[in-house]
């Protein structure tokens, strides 16, 4: 539907006109996170829009230089805070590339599974928020409900819903809990039901389609020249997905499709994200089927289970003989990180990953390894060098550029934020549109303040 506007000719009516400056200020219900858009309006049409960011700048890059390699991981959680596992994974894989170590295959599968669950929750948040801002409050609540099921899954694996700090340099904190695939299948059933309901409520809704179709159009060539990647770029027709074009972890073994749009308007971005959620679920289901088996804690063949507190007491009294071959039974927080699960989720490189607690308390080699990684003056020391490692974040290519000088911490950590490029194109996207189009366009940008400003 095209809208024609006729502005009365000022000369003919003998009127003087002035452009109106409207400040869509940092604190605004429709501005996800905090961003300021200063628009110059001619009636309802935007003549110029200037975007001001930086309200959530917390000095991620400066702080990363002060802590050691594993200490940066909680900071990476808080970058794109709706899909923290993808940031964790990107950073850890960059450091592993710098050091030159490989993680076991099961660890790759676990990382991919949790990353894709994170990606689904990011898309649910983005699509739900966009729908809510156009008036569809029910869709938002349904999608947040689906996100809750996914966050319960994430909490089982990592211990936290949002600020997970799950990956470590050289592996992950702990293995997937028992029965994860069953609960994952249940959560996905709910998510698929929610997606189907939302599509039914929105896609044939006249209000929604009129506001989303034909607004916020950008061409593929323009998007590429701004450095835009991810669902925003794929909606314009350019097929670039880091998981397919520069595959990492085990993405080259998993069969999945990459949805690509045609017109590059808001509706295409919405549809691309909806379809990407389905593809992510497909990736997780394939990965859960193909994951190489890991030892299970309760399997009697892998070791005698000893309650963790008892084990620590025995070790402090020096009764090591009673501990040989035992596996600690710990509470839910430390489940999956014991000796039984170690080979599956962490590299054996001793200079990089902490030993299982049974070894740290039980034998001198484990104690030495723990000491050499934890005490002041020691720690993971990567060789001198620089690497750039890109992963596919929920918004596009999330790249980590790390420079090391051999010290126990990184010398420079640069994160290439995917939504920075999209936001730099926002003023061009909004020029010529009407005020009401800011809402769906900005919603489909999926600006995450933590990632944009760091």
């Amino acid at each position, binding site marked *: 539907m095209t809208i024609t506007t006729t502005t009365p000719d000022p000369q003919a009516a003998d009127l003087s006109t002035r452009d109106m400056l409207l400040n869509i200020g940092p604190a605004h219900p429709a501005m996800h996170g905090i961003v300021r858009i200063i628009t110059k309006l001619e009636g309802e049409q935007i003549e110029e829009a200037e975007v001001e960011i930086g309200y959530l700048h917390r000095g991620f890059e*400066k702080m990363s230089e002060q802590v050691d390699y594993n200490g940066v991981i909680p900071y990476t959680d808080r970058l794109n805070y709706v899909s923290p596992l993808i940031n964790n994974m990107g950073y850890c894989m960059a450091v592993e590339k710098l050091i030159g170590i490989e993680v076991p295959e099961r660890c790759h599968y676990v990382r991919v599974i949790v990353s894709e669950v994170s990606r689904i929750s990011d898309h649910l948040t983005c699509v739900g928020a966009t729908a809510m801002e156009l008036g569809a409050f029910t869709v938002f609540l349904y999608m947040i409900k689906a996100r809750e099921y996914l966050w319960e899954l994430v909490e089982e694996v990592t211990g936290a819903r949002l600020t997970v700090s799950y990956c470590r340099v050289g592996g992950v904190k702990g293995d997937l809990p028992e029965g994860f695939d069953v609960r994952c299948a249940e959560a996905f059933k709910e998510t698929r039901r929610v997606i189907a309901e939302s599509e039914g409520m929105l896609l044939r809704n006249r209000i929604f389609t009129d506001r989303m179709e034909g607004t916020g159009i950008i061409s593929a060539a323009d998007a590429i020249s701004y450095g835009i990647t991810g669902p925003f770029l794929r909606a314009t027709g350019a097929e670039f997905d880091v998981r397919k074009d520069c595959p990492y972890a085990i993405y080259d073994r998993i069969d999945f499709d990459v949805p690509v749009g045609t017109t590059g308007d808001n509706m295409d971005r919405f549809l691309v994200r909806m379809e990407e959620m389905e593809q992510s679920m497909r990736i997780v289901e394939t990965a859960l089927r193909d994951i190489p088996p890991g030892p299970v804690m309760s399997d009697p063949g892998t070791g005698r289970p000893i309650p963790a507190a008892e084990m620590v007491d025995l070790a402090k009294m020096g009764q090591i003989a009673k501990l040989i071959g035992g596996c600690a039974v710990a509470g839910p927080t430390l489940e999956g990180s014991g000796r039984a699960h170690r080979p599956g989720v962490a590299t054996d490189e001793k200079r990089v990953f902490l030993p299982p607690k049974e070894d740290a308390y039980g034998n001198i080699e484990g104690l030495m390894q723990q000491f*050499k990684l934890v005490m002041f003056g020691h720690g993971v020391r990567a060789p001198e060098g620089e*690497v750039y490692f890109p992963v596919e974040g929920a918004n596009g290519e999330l790249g980590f550029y790390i420079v090391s000088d051999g010290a126990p911490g990184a010398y420079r950590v640069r994160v290439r934020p995917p939504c920075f490029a999209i936001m730099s194109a926002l003023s061009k996207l909004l020029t010529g549109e009407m005020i009401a189009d800011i809402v769906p366009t900005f919603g489909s940008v999926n600006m995450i303040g933590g990632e944009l400003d760091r």
Partner: protein
Amino acid sequence: MNAAELIAAVTERFPKAVSSSHAYRDDATVTVSPESLVEVARTLKEDAELSMDFLMDLTAVDYSTFGDKGSPAFFASSGVSVRPTNLIPDEDPWPGPPESGRYALVCHFYSSTHKHRLRLHVSLDEDEPEVDTLCELWPGANWLEREVWDMFGIRFKGHPDLKRILMYEEFEGYPLRKDYQVNKRQPLIGPVN
């Protein structure tokens, strides 16, 4: 093209501009002189063999305290000396930071047609570091260069609107420089009047 071929392709097109190159961890990296940056970038974008249509990232590194932290050789309070954890060895070591020039501008390029990546290093001096802008070639460079100006103080000649992007305008200093203390506070407290 793989890393070695990329480096060879760039070096043969700009033999005078390229001062060094390496492919540490298979990331093709080429160091060019500041005056030739725009020309090299234009060729990277337009040449059919290279066709780097994406400027993925533009950032900078301050090498002034490179290698200073090291590892303490002993605990100051007790005087006990310890041998720190060994540096994990490298068969193909990195050539090292640039000998001269405090800053290095680092640009990452990607080609969606050939699916190869290249990193460009440009060595810049300490006083008044300046380099030409890449805004005409890639509009995305606009905000990236503003961030480098904001964080490092590297000026971009020809940039349409070089002002701070992440920090507020009245902020003094360049936060990501190594001589900017991490715990220094410059709170912005309310309007002036």
